[in-house]
């Protein structure tokens, strides 16, 4: 599948934003994070900023962005519409929780309830994003539960790394905030490793034989219906990164997981401001790593339409 830059940025940025929002809301409500005005403002602004930038970016790949408002109407059947509905709904408790934290320095009682609702909304929005891909049967590499686990785990891992950095910035990073990336990054690492192992050892049920219904031997594509690349090949037949998949996976292992984990451990061992610098390195690394990981998620996905263009399996 063709990796559109706007969709890569959208899914990584909004995933990290929702992960961070959920963690801030839970830890804030539980009283583990201090209800400090400026920390709350910068932290929630970063989380909601990532979410909003991601959502806006997702409209850039639309053919008709001015009609984007229509995309929430079909929540009964469409995961994309459900994602839109939940994304909008989550702003309400998240905004109220932010008002309580930033203006009143309150994160308990009513404001705490808003925090819990914001966390639930954030979690469900990530699940909806993953379900858009999980629900597509023609793409074997997406149509499995690893897709959901991957989006949720990576959203929360990157959110925890971002939260740790902001908390260090305000010198309010307690042991829980420092330990969260150390706990969540390995979970995401395990899920992504499991995902890659799964797509390496399994194939789509569809082959060039089932696609054409021609039985009795190998089906060879001898003539295409067009002399130049058409929409189907540009959108679904993307091959550039597949060639470099192994290298990109190594980069993703390093930047998304190994480096952030090492520097997250460092934040537990050294005092501020060194710990703050370590938290920043972890954040910069996971941000770059996620772009490689998400690029691969698209580039390694093989659509069944390629079976009509010479692919034997998908």
């Amino acid at each position: 599948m063709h990796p559109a830059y706007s969709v890569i940025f959208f899914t990584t940025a909004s995933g990290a934003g929702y992960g961070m929002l959920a963690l801030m809301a839970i830890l804030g409500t539980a009283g583990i994070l201090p209800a400090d005005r400026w920390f709350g403002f910068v932290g929630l602004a970063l989380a909601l900023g990532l979410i909003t930038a991601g959502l806006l970016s997702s409209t850039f790949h639309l053919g008709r962005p001015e009609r984007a408002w229509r995309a929430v109407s079909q929540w009964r059947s469409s995961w994309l519409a459900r994602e839109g509905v939940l994304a909008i709904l989550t702003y309400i408790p998240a905004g109220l929780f932010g008002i309580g934290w930033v203006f009143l320095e309150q994160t308990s009682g009513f404001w705490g309830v808003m925090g819990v609702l914001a966390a639930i909304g954030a979690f469900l929005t990530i699940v909806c994003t993953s379900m858009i891909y999980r629900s597509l049967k023609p793409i074997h590499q997406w149509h499995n539960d690893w897709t959901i686990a991957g989006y949720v785990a990576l959203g929360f891992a990157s959110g925890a790394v971002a939260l740790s950095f902001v908390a260090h910035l305000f010198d309010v990073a307690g042991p829980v905030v420092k330990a969260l990336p150390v706990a969540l990054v390995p979970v995401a690492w395990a899920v992504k490793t499991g995902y890659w192992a799964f797509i390496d050892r399994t194939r789509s049920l569809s082959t060039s034989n089932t696609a054409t219904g021609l039985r009795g031997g190998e089906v060879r594509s001898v003539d295409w219906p067009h002399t130049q690349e058409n929409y189907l090949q540009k959108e679904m037949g993307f091959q550039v990164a597949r060639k470099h998949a192994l290298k990109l996976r190594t980069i993703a292992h390093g930047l998304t997981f190994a480096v952030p984990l090492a520097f997250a451990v460092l934040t537990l061992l050294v005092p501020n401001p060194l710990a703050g610098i370590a938290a920043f390195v972890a954040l910069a690394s996971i941000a770059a790593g996620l772009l490689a990981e998400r690029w691969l998620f698209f580039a390694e996905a093989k659509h069944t339409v390629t079976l009509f263009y010479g692919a034997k399996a998908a």
Partner: protein
Amino acid sequence: MTTLPTTTTTKLGLVIDLDTCVGCQACVTNCKEWNTGGHSAPLTDLNPYGDKVDGVWFNRVHTFEYGLGENARTVNFPKSCLHCENAACVTVCPTGASYKRSSDGIVLVDHDKCIGCKLCSWACPYGAREFDEDEGVMKKCTLCVDRIYNENLDEVDRQPACVITCPSKARHFGDLGDPDSDVSKLVAERGGYDLMPEQGYKPTNKYLPPRPRKLTGAAIGAQESLQPVKTNGKGFLGWVDKVLTR
């Protein structure tokens, strides 16, 4: 609404005969010609006289080979929207632009509602939908909905453009929900099949497999081998025979 109808009154669709298709591209051409002025008009062509030609087509003919040696076959393979019963291209649509008609099962796009997110084209295993870069909306085969019910046309012409133009009668149109229709009988008789049944989309369109190849002369009613002509010793041939055998 992008939820699918549980049943449709009829199941209009195509039956495509891979045995007789000669790959002449007439169906492709007539489809483009009709539809660029019909329900989905225009079928945009980008850079049509340049080196990177691109454009929207609803029907495309691939050519495949399969088998080896004397069993090897070349098959021309027309592919267009299969108007599936489980049309996931419809259910994934966030705006309600994609829909399946409960009356005849035809899958259509309302181009005024489409936001061009392309998700429907990802959800189609067959690659039936093509994006119009110029208009920013998705387009697809309409089964010539603007022909088959068109009372301004003679009744004989109320068929999809691809069907009516096919010179080798490789394309048939009708109600595949009615077991007594001509197309249903044809499918039963020739062992018509679904493309990618394992995907679970239940396509309405069916494909008829190439007939088994007849490898001997006897199989088509010819002599096994040629015998020398016998003469009765008379006439010119008799004289030639006599002279040459001397």
